């Protein structure tokens, strides 16, 4: 297969919910160290709600699934991550108005998502936020698309890049979000939102079998 479709999107959601449930405590711990200790709980609440709506959903496009995720996260997560992820998925949904998307489509979704996060949060790469995961992920997917790769390949590249991006936040001082209050004390700790972004994109790749 070169594209990914609605089943992939639904599987992504289920895998996302699973990984968030499984890593809930780890994300809480990361956020305890440089934030307020709720990130894992927030996402868990959000993805539990998404799961609950999934059975009744009748998506006609990949975008429909992403929009369901977007609106549900927006109305259940709260905090900083809620609006940021919500906007990311909403913008992604807009450019995924098809039953199947190819590598370019994946890249477009991630680029739109990134744009959404930046539009709301005004963070740049290196500010130690989820942007540090989304930005390289979007770029990596675009590269795969540019060289004619498949959607699963694009997702795998995005996941790997997001993972590396999340890890790249460890040595940084934060300039956005709660960790920015800590100054130098944030150094040596991973940004929880970058970590969760990597987990979600890894789930996307896994759902595509890549």
């Amino acid at each position, binding site marked *: 297969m070169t594209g990914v479709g609605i089943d992939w999107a639904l599987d992504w959601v289920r895998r996302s919910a699973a990984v968030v449930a499984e890593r809930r405590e780890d994300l*809480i*711990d990361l956020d*305890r*160290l*440089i*934030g*307020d*200790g*709720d990130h894992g*709980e*927030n996402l868990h*609440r959000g993805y539990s709600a998404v799961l609950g709506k999934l059975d009744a959903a009748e998506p006609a496009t990949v975008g429909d699934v992403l929009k369901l995720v977007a609106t549900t996260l*927006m*109305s*259940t*997560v*709260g*905090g*900083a*991550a*809620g*609006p*940021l992820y919500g906007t990311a998925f909403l913008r992604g949904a807009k450019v995924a108005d098809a039953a199947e998307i190819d590598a370019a489509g994946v890249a477009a979704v991630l680029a739109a998502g990134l744009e959404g996060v930046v539009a*709301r*949060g005004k963070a740049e790469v290196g500010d130690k936020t989820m942007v540090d995961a989304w930005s390289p992920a979007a770029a990596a997917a675009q590269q795969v698309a540019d060289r004619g790769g498949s959607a699963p390949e694009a997702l795998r590249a995005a996941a790997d890049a997001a993972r590396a991006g999340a890890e790249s936040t460890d040595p940084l001082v934060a*300039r*956005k*979000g*709660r960790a*920015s*209050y*800590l*100054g130098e*004390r944030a150094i040596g700790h991973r940004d929880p939102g970058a970590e969760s972004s990597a987990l979600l994109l890894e789930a996307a790749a896994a759902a595509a079998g890549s």
Partner: protein
Amino acid sequence: MKKLINDPNDVVPESVEGFVQAHADIVVAGADPELPYIARAGGAVAGKVGLVSGGGSGHEPLHGGFVGVGMLDAAVPGPVFTSPTPDPILAATQAADGGAGVLHIVKNYTGDVLNFETAAELADAEDIPVKAIVVNDDVAVEDSLYTAGRRGVGGTVLLEKIAGASAERGDDLDTVLAVATRVNDNVRSMGVALSACIVPHAGKPSFDLPEDEIEIGIGIHGEPGRRRIKAAPADEITDLLLDPIIEDLGLGSGEDALLFVNGMGGTPSSELYIVYRHARARLEALGVNVTRSLVGNYITSLEMQGASITVLRLDEESTALWDAPVHTAALRWGI
């Protein structure tokens, strides 16, 4: 983790339920449990600007304890330390709208700002004019492009009271916003933690503090402070909090001020008065007249031990608005 709670998931709804029952003469809960908010008993006041605040729970009595005549019209309690989503903020905004528009009082945290922004857009779509004041009084945080900006802390309480009095006397939305802005411009705060707090769903202390150390410059979310120092006498700690406030506020001889010593939740009021005593002496030594005072647990971090100091420069108008009658669960006078 030992707390007087049942399921961590039920902390906020059960606590709000008890709160609304205990203060049924003052407040009422929103009708839809999925969109929780606390509003004035009796509903929106026709022709009055509505005041809505909210944010993560765990800071009680903020904000629900400040709903009532002379202060807020509605408060939106998010999960513990987590900003509420836009939907309940919109519902609260609708409940608070008496036809003269609504002021959102937002503490400066990314989550609060974003969720209130969205709610304001949604309210606008329903033709409710909304303005927002973002409170950012915490001098522990550098106010620069390189941070999320100063946090909203103790000043929020004073702002809600004073803007509330402005709305209550019939000021229009722009005037209430101007009053609120003036408070925000003239208020500064800083806090210290002697112990961490435990978020119920986390089940662990928000940070680990050795028996002989304290955190200077903490916020209200159990986040670590700017730096850690050895435990010190109250007077020294008071100096560490007060110096940056005085400097940043540029407070000088002959000026009037409100001195607010706030407990973080787990500190006995006797200790707050010890801090108050020294802070007041310091201000008076500068020639500042401490004409109004507030001491107690008003904006807390669960059971955290510690305190914050807030100083508000007062003028005649803000003094009169502070003195105006208020009838809420946590602040009450003149009624």
